[in-house]
């Protein structure tokens, strides 16, 4: 069962109902291998465009609506992310990576393009500054140097009047921003139930930010259904991956102390196994967990506020054989799967029960959980050492049997100066190691070079990754030297470089391969740390510089006086080399002149001219030798 289809499940349920509810929420839970649990929260609210125009808000957050209206934003995507998605063991990304951001904060929006470039920049600045206040994030630091205008990487998700004309896409990232509770609180405030009831009551900062991977997203876009008025929809999602064992630790004692000896699970087959020697054994089967233990609280009440919201609140994707118990307001019942999918069990929160909890026991399941392979594996690293230059090295691995077209987007800070002539894209087949690497020619390339302190580099490549092969993308760069006021307080940490964004394009419709997706998907690499040459901001350093300068000046002049010999310009004997050179030059001139003379009938004086030039050369040498002393005083030494 594809995760994407699952996530689309509530949408299909919604569309079955005649009236689209103005607000719905949904939680998807799925245990991942190695004792992890994926929890995807989705909150969708909408308002009709006419209500939006007249500033009439019901479930759509007013604070956000006003900002969007003021800044002329047509479509907004805002991401807060932390940690890494481990695609080797967890498989493909939830929601095809579309509701995911790079480490830190990422924002992209389509703004009204009326009024030309300055007006758009004004709107963008007003948007990021207002959002910065709303979400307690440093979004206001997204200025011209951190803004790019991607061409191929993003497409509007909403249905815009006039087919998307008259608007402009701007994209900004803050890789260094640490996402934390202060960003979650305003996020929850946008919800109708404010995190007090319904599934949002599970979102507690301690648990969300103890996750191995978490991403919060806000997406605002116009949605039109046939025969209805277009609506402005806001989708808020929180996706987290929790370590079940870690999350289940009691809150009053979260320290992972070594277990008591009795609780150790030992591999008794080892020959040296003894009472004091224990080779740890891997736990078998699925771990036991419950919502209340993992999130620290059961689901409180429900948040069925909108009319016509009949959908399920929680869906759980586990194996058919797994026992699932639902504890709802005192009643305890076993949850069984129903509907088309065997793996998914759905629950609708009771409006009456105060608490709802789901618990699963420890169980050994024979059936291996199905896992979908991600479309692409990507990793990106800075190579090289030293303060001067470095290199970027990206590895894209296509595990599938069909080639994939991708858009690779990098927005680099201006102080990282890439050399595009060193850009190499090489492909190695993974099936055989002996084959040499073949260069891959990008189908398209968009490159905006950086301007110091004004804008960063924007690099976008449209590539085809051959089937079952690894593509290495490398280029060299120089590190700029910043002005000393441009360093942040933690200058020696290095500077963050935003993750690369990779959009995997859906294959062409005429492609014959069967199990391909029709939707594009996104993935992002990790952010990078770029060490720049950093001055020593300490006092001794400045003292050393100052004293060295003074000593150099003093020493230089005194040394000069001691060593230099002063003579009159006329007294300088001609250097032996100069004499010889002059002689050779004169000779050559003479020969050349003689030849010329012989060619031109009656030619004469060639040799003489040569001699004159030769003397001139010697005079130059002498002038050079006099150098700075220049005989200004014309003073003889003794």
């Amino acid at each position, binding site marked *: 069962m594809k995760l994407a289809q699952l996530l689309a499940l509530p949408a299909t349920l919604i569309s079955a109902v005649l009236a689209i509810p103005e607000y719905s929420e949904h939680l998807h839970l799925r245990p991942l291998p190695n004792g992890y649990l994926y929890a995807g929260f989705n909150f969708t609210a909408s308002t009709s465009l006419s209500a939006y125009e007249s500033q009439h808000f019901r479930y759509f957050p007013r604070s956000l609506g006003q900002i969007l209206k003021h800044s002329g934003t047509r479509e907004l995507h805002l991401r807060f992310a932390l940690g890494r998605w481990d695609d080797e063991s967890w498989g493909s990304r939830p929601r095809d990576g579309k509701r995911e951001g790079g480490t830190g904060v990422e924002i992209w929006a389509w703004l009204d393009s009326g009024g030309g470039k300055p007006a758009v920049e004004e709107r963008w600045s007003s948007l990021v500054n207002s959002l910065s206040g709303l979400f307690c994030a440093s979004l206001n630091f997204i200025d011209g140097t951190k803004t790019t205008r991607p061409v191929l990487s993003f497409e509007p998700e909403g249905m815009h009047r006039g087919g998307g004309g008259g608007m402009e896409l701007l994209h900004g990232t803050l890789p260094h921003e640490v996402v934390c509770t202060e960003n979650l609180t305003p996020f929850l405030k946008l919800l109708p139930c404010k995190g007090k009831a319904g599934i949002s009551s599970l979102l507690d900062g301690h648990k969300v930010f103890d996750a191995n991977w978490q991403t919060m997203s806000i997406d605002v876009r116009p949605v039109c259904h046939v025969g209805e008025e277009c609506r402005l929809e806001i989708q808020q999602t929180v996706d987290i991956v929790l370590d079940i064992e870690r999350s289940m630790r009691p809150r009053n004692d979260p320290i992972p*102390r070594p277990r*008591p000896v009795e609780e150790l699970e030992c591999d008794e087959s080892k020959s040296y196994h003894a009472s004091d020697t224990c080779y740890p054994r891997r736990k078998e089967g699925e771990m036991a967990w419950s919502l209340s233990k993992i999130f620290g609280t059961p689901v409180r009440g429900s948040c069925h506020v909108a009319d016509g919201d009949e959908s399920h609140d929680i869906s759980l994707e586990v194996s058919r054989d797994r026992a699932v118990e639902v504890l709802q307001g005192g009643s305890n019942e076993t949850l069984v799967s129903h509907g088309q999918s065997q793996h998914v069990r759905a629950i609708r929160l009771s409006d009456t029960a105060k608490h709802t909890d789901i618990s699963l026991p420890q169980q050994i399941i024979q059936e291996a959980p199905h896992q979908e392979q991600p479309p692409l594996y990507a990793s990106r690293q800075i190579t090289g050492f030293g303060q001067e230059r470095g290199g970027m090295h990206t590895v894209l691995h296509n595990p599938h049997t069909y080639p994939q077209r991708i858009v690779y987007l990098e927005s680099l800070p201006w102080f990282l100066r890439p050399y595009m002539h060193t850009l190499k894209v090489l492909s190695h087949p993974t099936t055989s190691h002996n084959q040499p690497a073949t260069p891959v020619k990008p189908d398209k390339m968009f490159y905006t070079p950086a301007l110091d302190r004004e804008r960063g580099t924007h690099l976008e490549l449209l590539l085809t990754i051959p089937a079952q092969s690894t593509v290495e993308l490398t280029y060299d760069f120089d590190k700029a030297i910043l002005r000393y006021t441009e360093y942040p307080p933690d200058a020696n940490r290095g500077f963050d470089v935003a993750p690369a964004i990779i959009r995997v394009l859906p294959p062409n419709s005429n492609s014959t391969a069967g199990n391909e997706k029709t939707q594009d998907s996104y993935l992002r690499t990790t952010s990078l740390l770029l060490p720049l040459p950093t001055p020593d901001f300490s006092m001794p350093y400045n003292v050393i510089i100052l004293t060295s300068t003074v000593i150099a000046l003093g020493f230089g002049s005194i040394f000069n006086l001691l060593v230099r010999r002063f003579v009159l310009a006329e007294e300088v004997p001609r250097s032996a080399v100069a004499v010889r050179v002059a002689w050779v030059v004169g000779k050559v001139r003479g020969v050349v002149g003689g030849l010329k003379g012989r060619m031109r009938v009656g030619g004469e004086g060639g040799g003489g001219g040569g001699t004159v030039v030769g003397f001139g050369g010697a005079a130059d040498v002498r002038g050079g030798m006099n150098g700075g002393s220049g005989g200004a005083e014309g003073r003889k030494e003794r």
Partner: protein
Amino acid sequence: MALSARLLTLRNSPVLLKLPPYLSALCIVIGIAWFFILPLNEYSRQTYVSENAILPGQVHTYFGGSEHNVFRAYRQEVYQLSQFSETDRLAALEKVLREIGLKVAAQPYHFTVAGEEVKGTNVYGVLQGPRADATEAMVLMAAWRNFEGEINYSGLALALTLARYFKRWSIWSKDIILLIPADSTYGPEAWVSAYHSTSPDITATRNVSSLPIKAGALQATVALDYPVGPWGHRFDKLDILYDGINGALPNLDLLNTAVAIASGQMGIGCTIHGMLSHSDSYRDRLTTLAKGVVTQSAGQATGPHSAFVPYHVDAITLKTVGDGWHDEMSLGRTTESLFRSINNLLEHLHQSFFFYILLNANRFASIGNYLPAAMLLAGSFTVTALALWVQSGQVAVGPATKMEGTEKNGAQPELEVVKIGDAVALVPAATTKPAEREMLLPAAVVLAVHLASFLPLYSLNSLHRQHLPTALQTTIATSLLLPALASTALTRRSQISTQQIQIMQSFSLLLLGTSLATLATLNFSLAFVVGVLASPLSFVRPLPRGTTTGFPAVLGRVGREYRYALQVAMNLIATLLYAVASPPVVLYALCWYFSQDVGGLLLEMAKGWSVQGVYTSFVIWAVWWPAWVVGGIALCRGGGER
């Protein structure tokens, strides 16, 4: 203007012209004496932790309890692995790491040095910090074999136990890489160079495969060296190894943190350079200082951590020494606390000193205190070089009369009449007159000798190991003959003059002085040691030959009888001294003193040069040796006028 006029008159002052040799000797004496005052309290300092973020020993360590059972099991497992073949062992190690929950990869490497094959495979696992953003990493290293070649049973078992224990914490702000190199020198070198290389260059001598998994910028490395078999052995103290390649040192803060945690929090005494009993007396401090200078000047790897330091990754090795009552859990808790401290770092270690000489685990001399020693030594060469330059610009007026004049004690200087316009003055007659310097030949000789230095440098670093001692013996023979032959050739063929000899020596010493002064800021110890060994070169002058020049007048009449015999004897002594101070002879002497095999030492130097880029042999052959040869040419040329 007044100042410059005064200076111009000053430069003809006879005192100034006679001063340089004494000044040079004074520089050498003070430079060496400086070294001996460093251990005093007034010239060294107590160490302190400069970076506030480290907070050494401020966390409670929980490593213990049932982890001890796990540790014993891992130690048994490592012991069993040691019985396997290499491929099985690597596979089993990878399996253990995978069970712990790390991302595992292996890196084979292969070096060919001095006809010897060095190959192995590094196994490493990355513990992705649960909440880390993959931008930074710290390395926990336990080499399969330690620096002495013993299997690191307990060290590796402890590293595995710690990795398993660390995996349960969510506090890590940096990834933790558990690195298990096959040996302690080439494995870490291969790994860290592949981690930082921009392109995998495969050469005939070097084949290091690239790393499949990486994890951000490395912040610090801690290596464990605890080569104790499956039955355990309690240790007394922790020896902290810190010297990097080419004498690069890790930030003092890392060392201080380790010392503070081990001795302050865990009660484990710390030693450096294996000084097990250090009474903090002057003698012990001086011994530690001397050991530090010797290891630093050698520039070779001193432990698995050494390879990391040149890449600006601060690294230390914790090595257990002695018999005592501390067990593996104390070392484990020390390492845990150390990693917690490194984890606290917000920036790369930069606050504290990168240039220091340790006198004790908690006492150091900083660069400001020790640098003058090497700089004075380097300065002594520059002083002589300048003096020779000035001398070369002046030739004596009427050499015969002048010679007589010097013997007449208290004789009045000759006077001459100078008439400018109407003014008439009586001034002392000039004993010297300025002369044009002929610099082509001296420069060519110095250049040629420097170029020739690449022969010993090349042959001693790339020949097969069997031929290395022979190559050194050949170098000794040629080195000793070269100055005499070159000098004869120069005098016979090119009619080299005294002035040219002076200029040649001046160039050579100037080059030596500036090279050593520059080197002193990079590797103080090497510059100091070479400076001391080369210091006699400042006083090399053409040997007196059949004339009275340079003959000590003190001997008076008696001496005059045996003038010739004495001269020959003194020349012989000077030549012998000169020969003893030659680089290859000193190398031999060092081998004898440290009771090392010459072939082994040369092999280590060759390996260091070609694998790790140790430039000590470059300094010996391309800086010191040419200066010595040029000195020899001057010495053998003789002082007799032609």
